[in-house]
């Protein structure tokens, strides 16, 4: 039962959800920039559920030996590895930033399709992560249909 950790339905009050994630992350040992990185990444994932997804879902957060994992279930189920792989930034054009930021803020990003919808997993290691070159990070994130748990 404890394995499920904190759980909360996705809600339009993003500030409330950010506070929840911040509280949970701090409770599980994240501090400072790492904590705020997680909060921002979760915020972007939830924003996408409203802007591109099913507008409903569930946030699940849990601490474990390696750090903290927050999963965002989107009942829309239309988020694909191709979206993650295509993440880009282009200040001169429109669009983008959300998935790009998620991939850069988190130590690991996983994506899983379930019967309930798509589950984006955001993982923060308890200790500073080694700096992984961007190209490798993007590829591994886009490929992970079978997230490591």
């Amino acid at each position, binding site marked *: 039962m404890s394995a499920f950790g904190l759980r909360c339905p996705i809600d339009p009050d993003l500030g409330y959800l950010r506070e929840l994630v911040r509280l949970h992350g701090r409770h599980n*040992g994240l501090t*400072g920039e790492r904590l705020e990185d997680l909060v921002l990444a979760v915020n972007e994932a939830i924003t996408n559920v409203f802007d591109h997804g099913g507008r409903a879902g569930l946030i699940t957060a849990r601490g474990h030996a390696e750090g903290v994992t927050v999963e965002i279930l989107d009942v829309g189920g239309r988020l694909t590895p191709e979206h993650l792989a295509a993440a880009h930034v282009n200040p001169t054009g429109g669009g983008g930033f959300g998935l790009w930021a998620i991939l850069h803020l988190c130590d690991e990003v996983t994506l899983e399709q379930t019967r309930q919808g798509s589950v984006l997993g955001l993982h923060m290691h308890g*200790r500073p*992560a080694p700096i992984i*070159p961007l190209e490798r990070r993007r590829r591994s994130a886009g490929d992970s249909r079978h997230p490591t748990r």
Partner: protein
Amino acid sequence: MGASRQPQPSPRPAGMPITRLTLSHQHLPGLILVALAGEIDRTTSVRLAGYVDRVRRIGDHVVFDLTELTFLDSSGLHVLLGCAHTCAAEGRQVHLAGARGSPARLLAITGVDGYLPVHAGVDQAITTVLTKDRG
């Protein structure tokens, strides 16, 4: 552009409660003023009990300054009452001062504010204790 990741200060061990109670005291003639700041629950009330035991001189009245106490639970209430009983055995009293918000509410709901002398502020509590002792 790579993901920049600066070395971070080592995080607090996961699951470790943050200490949320600060205790301090001041000796006055015939009484000890114990100030509680923060939150008292079952994870911190034992610390309060030990603290009072250690700093109180035999024969002291005790004034608890609750002005900066934001949370008080039933286990904390038990410590305050336990202290009152210890004092009573020596003909001394426990006074509560400055309780506000949720702690004041617990004192009211349980009737403890009718059982122990309660004061709006620390000054009134001290004056009451000193006046009584002199009289």
